[in-house]
């Protein structure tokens, strides 16, 4: 990969574009399972544009990042080093993690916070093949009655919910679509 490709693909207008991308992240986390469009990033494959925008918006030199084997290439490492500057660390030390669901296993490795500081928990950015078909029914804060969403599995998220207020929080990305599942959401199979 040459330098031009590594240097490209960030936000052209960082303040405005990261503000818009953050609003997508905020709406997604506030309304679990609802799909938000998020654009502006063009990261090297296999990172999706949506996951790239989340990285550019939230990840920097102060947030250790775990790259799962599915997304861990020389090109992605170089792109993240230039655009975010995040230290790449083992799963146990990560504030953010990026990868396909299978490659992130076992998710029990990730930080779930402590009783005193439940916010010191990892945020997983899970690359998905698509945003459909819905596989789970979600209920909880942010959802008026219930909402259907596409999740890679059910059991891990149901187990994560039982740890509340501890637990990890997830973003799911496919193309330029973003949706989220905070630890507070109840998940059951459709």
């Amino acid at each position, binding site marked *: 990969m040459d330098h031009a490709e590594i240097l490209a693909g960030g936000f052209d207008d960082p*303040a405005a574009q990261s503000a818009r991308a953050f609003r997508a*992240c905020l709406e997604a986390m*506030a309304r679990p399972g609802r799909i938000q469009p998020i654009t502006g990033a063009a990261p090297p494959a296999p990172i999706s544009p949506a996951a790239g925008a989340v990285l550019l918006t939230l990840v*920097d030199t102060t947030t250790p990042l775990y790259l799962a084997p599915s997304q861990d290439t020389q090109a992605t490492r170089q792109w993240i080093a230039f655009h975010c500057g995040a230290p790449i660390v083992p799963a146990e030390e990560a504030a953010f993690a990026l990868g396909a669901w299978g490659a992130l296993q076992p998710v029990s490795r990730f930080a779930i916070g402590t009783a005193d500081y439940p916010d010191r928990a990892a945020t997983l950015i899970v690359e998905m093949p698509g945003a459909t078909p819905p596989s789970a029914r979600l209920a909880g804060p942010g*959802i008026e009655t219930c909402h259907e969403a596409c999740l890679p599995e059910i059991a891990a998220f149901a187990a994560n919910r039982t740890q509340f207020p501890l637990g990890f929080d997830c973003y799911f990305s496919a193309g330029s679509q973003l949706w989220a599942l905070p*630890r507070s959401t109840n998940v059951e199979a459709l």
Partner: protein
Amino acid sequence: MSEAAYNFAYLDEATKRMIRRALLKGLAIPGYQVPFASREMPMPYGWGTGGVQVTAACLTPEDCLKVIDQGADDTTNAVSIRKFFERTAGVATTEHTAEASVIQTRHRIPEQALTEGQILVYQVPIPEPLRFLEPRESETRRMHALEEYGLMHVKLYEDIARHGAIATSYAYPVKVEGRYVMDPSPIPKFDNPKLGGNAAIQLFGAGREQRIYALPPYTQVVSLDFEDHPFEPSKADHDCDLCGAAQSYLDEVITDDRGGRMFICSDTDFCASRRADGLRGRLSPEEAA
């Protein structure tokens, strides 16, 4: 220095990222106070530095901002914060609740129901509901971790023992999703029922105390009470003297030195739109237009 010399919405990007991460964790753990590295803002603590930082982290160039102070759009604090974001972010501003996409508020929730797509940002002086009962941060943090909220019920009980009713009338503590007890900022308890099941995202920023917390839409929020002393939202027992509204929260205004007084809506936009619709109160006779 010109406005163009500032980054969009005043704060630098690294600071916004830090605030944004705190906001997202706040939404994931409704009612929990997330510590954040609050910055000095070009206004004193107590003037809404927490709310201003949250607003700055949320604003996009397309937003329309409304700022209210005790319900009013035209008070010093509201006007100066609105001007601050007009200059540093170049966003559109409004006084109409329905037109705004981001509303920063000090001590009120607008009368008009909020909708999806709106964000309500609260300025919070003391985010810790247990602080006046237990001054040590290490202790209150442990009390939240253990869900040890008995002290708060003792405080409400002492109100009943002393006054015959729960005398707390503002900053009335609530329990969020059956887990965290939260300070709703000094809103009157009249506004407490609007905290729960709200369609908008509610974000709370405390600048001096360096805490951010949040309520996602449609979150369950219950005001603490007792079976035999249920929570009662209260307001002055009058109608608005300008627009005649019977169901809005009222300010009492002394009008002379002989005991004259009037009651007017605290939400100036709500009152003005009712008057624009031709509704009149006791002291606002029909204009001879």
